[in-house]
């Protein structure tokens, strides 16, 4: 009886392990399809197709947002701190859109290297803060993003 149970336990563990390996290999093979977006570096390396609907993601570069005063057109630069990607968009941006914020843009990559976006999504990071704390940081000459970067580094130590 003991031996029978042990045999059953090994059979189940073996089955689960094999299934895990199969799923792991599948996910590994599909890794580029599972990524929700291309980074500016991947686009600069030519990994993203031209003139087809793609998503690109990164941080909105500081001082790069330029709005057309006559229309809803806006252009900004998305960066992964290695490569930059210029994005042009016409429409309403989400509330959380701001410089230094992560975004995911959906649109078509143009042969000249900029992306014509038809939707912009704001990416939220994992940090939460009351407004007074954010204000106090700003008054002290930091931006909340600096604080977050430092706290993120601190948490890993």
């Amino acid at each position: 009886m003991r031996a029978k149970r042990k045999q059953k336990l090994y059979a189940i563990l073996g089955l689960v392990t094999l299934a895990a390996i199969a799923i792991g290999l599948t996910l590994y093979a599909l890794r580029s399809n599972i990524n929700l977006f291309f980074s500016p570096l991947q686009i600069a390396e030519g990994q993203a197709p031209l003139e087809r609907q793609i998503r690109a993601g990164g941080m909105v570069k500081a001082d790069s947002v330029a709005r057309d005063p006559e229309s809803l057109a806006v252009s900004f630069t998305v960066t992964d701190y290695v490569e930059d990607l210029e994005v042009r968009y016409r429409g309403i941006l989400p509330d959380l859109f701001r410089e230094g914020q992560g975004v995911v843009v959906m649109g078509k990559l143009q042969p000249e290297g900029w992306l014509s976006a038809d939707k912009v999504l704001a990416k939220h990071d994992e940090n939460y803060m009351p407004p007074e704390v954010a204000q106090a940081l700003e008054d002290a000459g930091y931006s909340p993003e600096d604080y977050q970067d430092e706290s993120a580094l601190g948490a890993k130590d």
Partner: protein
Amino acid sequence: MWAFLHKLGSPKGFYAISGRWLPALWGVAVALILVGGVWGLVFAPADYQQGNSFRIIYVHVPAAFLAQSIFVAMAVAGLVFMVWKIKLADMAAAMMAPLGAGMTFVALFSGAVWGVPTWGTWWQWDARLTSMLILLFLYIGVIALRGAFVSRDGGARAASLLAMVGVINIPIIKFSVEWWYTLHQPASFSITEKPAMPAEMWLPLLSMVLGFYAFFLAVTLTRTRSEILRRESSKRWVRALVEERR
């Protein structure tokens, strides 16, 4: 210790012991959820970027924790049932599944509601969101598979097996935000790391998470007790119990 576990593993012993724990467990669950809910929804400060919509975290995060923990618990119960033939483990697994499916739905729904104002979309096929949707389908599959068999034993074995294989999805959910580029942010709150928010925000969240776990235990014990009575209704101790109550 072994004698106690042995007693806990038999339906009759479990029924007696869980009956003693239940009132306290329900009390703890209600108290923690009330405290965490009122504190989080009314008194905790708003977020500097999201304003009040961040308060969905007080439902979303505990529900997502439970959705994953319940599946792991179901898989462990399935293993215990398959290898050691403990019927009680199968009863508990059967009783957990609907609550797990409900929690998965709550996590998906609250996330979608939060996504509209924050991200600008309620759904994206990103790795975290998709793996969570697969978890919901796995729950539905486990429940349906159990019901699809004529014999109770056959249904129990099939459901256990699906739960054990399906548990592979849990690490995928957990690490999806690290392995791939996703729209969903990494974890703000986990057991192992410092929370990415000040204490007046995460303390109510902690209260909600613990309250949800207590709620899960209380619901599972209560439902397993009624399942024991149903399945063992022909046993002498159950009849004696019914006579006593009459």
